[in-house]
């Protein structure tokens, strides 16, 4: 060390200064330890957060898979119902094109007429009664009654 530098160093370094430097050293080490601890804690927290996120992701994916599985299961049942061929006695065909499927053999199927229902107008209806006194009376909207008056 150069003589001037040594003198300067000795002039600055008195007992009080040495004490200050020791305290400063302690402060630095304390701060370094605190920083290390904070970093370790942060790493731990980050790891825990990552673990939670991964768990949540895994859970949500497995949940989604379960829901999809359930849905596809239901669809599979419905598909089987559609595809299963019913016994011949349970299938009834009407005269028209409507196909009736009975859920059970106990259900009675009422067969309607082979031909379609003929629609007539009000005048034709009243004309069917000839000389008799008849009238069409509207009781409420969409409903009318045919009143036949007997002469006796």
């Amino acid at each position, binding site marked *: 060390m150069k003589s001037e530098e*040594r003198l300067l160093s000795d002039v600055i370094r008195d007992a009080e200064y040495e004490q200050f*430097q020791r305290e*400063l050293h302690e402060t630095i080490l304390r701060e370094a330890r605190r920083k290390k601890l904070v970093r370790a804690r942060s790493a731990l927290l980050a790891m825990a957060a990552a673990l939670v996120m991964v768990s949540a992701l895994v859970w949500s994916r497995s949940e989604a898979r379960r829901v999809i599985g359930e849905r596809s299961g239901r669809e599979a049942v419905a598909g089987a119902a559609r595809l299963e061929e019913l016994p011949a006695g349970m299938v009834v065909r009407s005269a028209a094109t409507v196909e009736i499927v009975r859920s059970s053999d106990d259900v009675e199927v009422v067969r309607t007429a082979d031909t379609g229902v003929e629609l007539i107008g009000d005048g034709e209806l009243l004309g069917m009664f000839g000389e008799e006194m008849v009238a069409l009376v509207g009781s409420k909207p969409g409903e009318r009654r045919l009143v036949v008056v007997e002469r006796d």
Partner: protein
Amino acid sequence: MEGAVPMVTSLQIPGVMCDRIIPVGKQEAERVRLLTERMVRGEEAAFSEFHGLYSDRLFRYLLVLTRGQEDFARELCQATMVKVVRAMREFADEEHLWNWMARVGRNCFIDALRKRKRSPEMLPLSEVEIESTGEGAALSSGAVDGELMERLKESLSDLDAAERSLIEEFYFEEKTQQAMAEERQTSSKAVESKLARIRQKLRTILLTRLRYEK
């Protein structure tokens, strides 16, 4: 670095043995890079080494900045070191590390001045000098040491002849205390005590000069 020899390190490559010669300047940079890297990793020994290398230098810088206000400089040194340790990162070389430390120190100083609401004349190296260094720049270590050395030389002239002679013999002529004691027909213990008292006197003069001289 005077007298430093290039560092030779051996590289182990499977099947090959070769040496790597690192120039002196790069050695210094490598030392700082490794030190700061170890500090970033949280190695306590690195922080101790850092304290040994830079605490005196930082204190001197702050002593000049505060114009010899020792207590204020200590307070700032403490605050600066805490900030430096908290924000430590890897530095490529000493110049960058020191400039950064000095900037942290200077910011601490300015913050403290604002807090204390001190008058502008308390600013040490004048605002002009601080501004002229520009944003991010700092007073070089050489400038600080130069300022201190200048004041020390001036302070020496304030000592009386006998005191100055004692200092010059011990520090500049590198005489031993024993030899000085024999010349003065006294004990080396007495010379040691006398030197300690003169250093204390010099210290007071130096701090006063720093405080009041422009």
